[in-house]
């Protein structure tokens, strides 16, 4: 279908205008992070930095323990994802392949658990962790994050295993594999892209958490994750927006990169368990 020249011009104008409006907040974030502090308490605002400065980035590394915060976020994300992936791979495979009494109900339970309000589950978890003296400890976050990574991972992996033909395992078993070795040697290597995507998304979910980190770790600044740390920069008597924006950009960079890889998996993964 050919478009007339006017239609093409209008289309491009609309596309560009819409994208500018939607992406502008991110541009403004970058622009602010490169501004000298004094500029941000003056009008008119500067839309393009004549002399961009990395002072805000230097300041956040020099004056705030953002390195420690980043490391905490990474440690928790790796540990909670590893824990969740271990149990989810096995469970997802079981639900995908074997019809056993009750396993459908268990699958349904995981599906519904994805919708659990974190503001509810955090209350009893806080009580338990206080008894176990885990408050202020990163271990509390590892367990808390598994509450939302596991249900998600089970379903994303189940969906992925569903796409691998069962005939491959049957053939492997005729060749002498047990069902367990067939899973480990045949199914898992074939599922590598799905495993990678689920692992990466588990990492993203953990990294993005705010409610658990803020509640369990608030009293122990050394254990803060980067989200809690960056959010804490506001609320002091003078807000250095360039420093906050620099911190926010550093904190979200790994997540934005992860999404570039994840997008096509997420459409099917997020809607798993419902009609396509």
């Amino acid at each position, binding site marked *: *279908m050919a478009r007339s020249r006017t239609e*093409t011009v209008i289309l491009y104008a*609309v*596309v560009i205008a819409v994208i500018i409006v*939607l992406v502008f907040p*991110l541009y403004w*974030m970058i622009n602010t992070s490169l501004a000298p502090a004094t500029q*941000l308490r003056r009008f*008119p*605002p500067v839309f393009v930095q004549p002399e961009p400065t990395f002072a805000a980035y230097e300041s956040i590394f020099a004056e705030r323990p953002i390195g420690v915060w980043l490391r905490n976020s990474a440690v928790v994300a790796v540990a909670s994802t590893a*824990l969740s992936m271990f149990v989810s791979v*096995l*469970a997802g495979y*079981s*639900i995908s*392949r*074997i*019809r*056993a*009494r009750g396993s459908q109900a*268990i699958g349904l*339970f995981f*599906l*519904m*658990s994805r*919708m*659990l309000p974190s*503001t*509810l*589950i955090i*209350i*009893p978890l806080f*009580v338990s962790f*206080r008894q176990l003296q885990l408050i202020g400890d990163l271990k509390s976050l590892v367990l808390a994050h*598994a*509450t939302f990574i*596991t*249900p998600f991972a*089970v379903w994303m992996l189940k969906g992925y295993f569903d796409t691998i033909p069962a005939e491959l395992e049957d053939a492997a078993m005729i060749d002498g594999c047990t069902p367990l070795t067939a899973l480990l040697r045949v199914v898992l290597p074939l599922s590598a892209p799905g495993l990678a995507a689920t692992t990466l998304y588990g990492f993203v979910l953990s990294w993005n958490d*705010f*409610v658990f980190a803020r509640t369990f770790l608030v009293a122990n600044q050394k254990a803060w994750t980067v989200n809690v740390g*960056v*959010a804490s920069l506001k609320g002091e008597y003078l807000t250095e*927006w360039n420093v*906050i*924006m620099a911190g926010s950009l550093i*904190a*979200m960079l790994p*997540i*934005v990169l992860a*999404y*570039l890889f994840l997008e096509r998996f*997420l*459409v099917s993964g*997020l*809607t798993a*368990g*419902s*009609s*396509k």
Partner: protein
Amino acid sequence: MTSGIIGQDDPARRPFNGGAPRWSLWQPGNRHIFAYLLLLPAVLLTAAIIVYPIVSAIDLSFQKIKIAKLGRSRAPWTLANYEELFLSAEFYQAIWVTISLVATVTILSYVIGLATAVMVNQRFAGRKLARVLVAVPWAVPSVMAAIIWWWLFDSSFGLINWALVRSGLSSEMIPWLSTPGAAFFVIVVVMVWKGYPFISVIMLAGLQSIPLELYDAAKVDGANAWHRFRFITLPGLRSVRGIALILIMLWVFRDFPIIYILTGGGPQRTTQTLAIMTYQEAFKFHDFGFAAAIGVITLVISVIASWFMVRRTDEPLY
């Protein structure tokens, strides 16, 4: 189990020692045991970190208990928290805020998400880049989305206030986050900005599944652009629309970071949803029993909503 008999006497499956077949986990008749063993770690983990906490939250909601007494002894069983809740104006206000927020954000995200999906589904040079850019806010973590907009809506040096005053739309700087109504508006803006790309990405997948021949045929029959949208595009998206809407509603319903960072539920509780109220009652006012009661109600609502989502499944889960 019914699947076991076939193949049980298959010679290839007999133990190599040639004796009578010994019990083995790998016999087809024991496949269900293998299934349970695979499920076991996940079941044990979730029993400890999901099921037990839910049960103890329900238990807490029937106790009048403050933070100091937690874990020491069980307070007597009482309906007091629920009675207090159903008599408090604050609870009904939170329900109203939750409903308005869910409805507003869902409708706006749907309209913008659908419009952007239709836009980047057109054929033009640079379409791939446009698709990525339209979806970008999706990748921004909620905490960072809240912080970016906080700065844009800042009452003293925010860009939005500057633009409003400069253009003459407002005579003074608006203290957005401390003004009822305005604060709600800011929350809506942040949530729509973070939420529309999700709808857009799902709708784009839906649009790509509509055969182009339908549009060509409709053109031949004289249908205009609106008719093609109304009678081909919208019906073609029916299968993805329900799930996208339910997921976005549940996301707004359960959100914590955006509201907590921007307003904490204020001013005058005008942005206090049920989720925020649950949190504040527990961790600001230390009234754990009362908070658990609100939380249990949010759980019931979430379960009902996700049940609808599961029920939309065309095929059984297996």
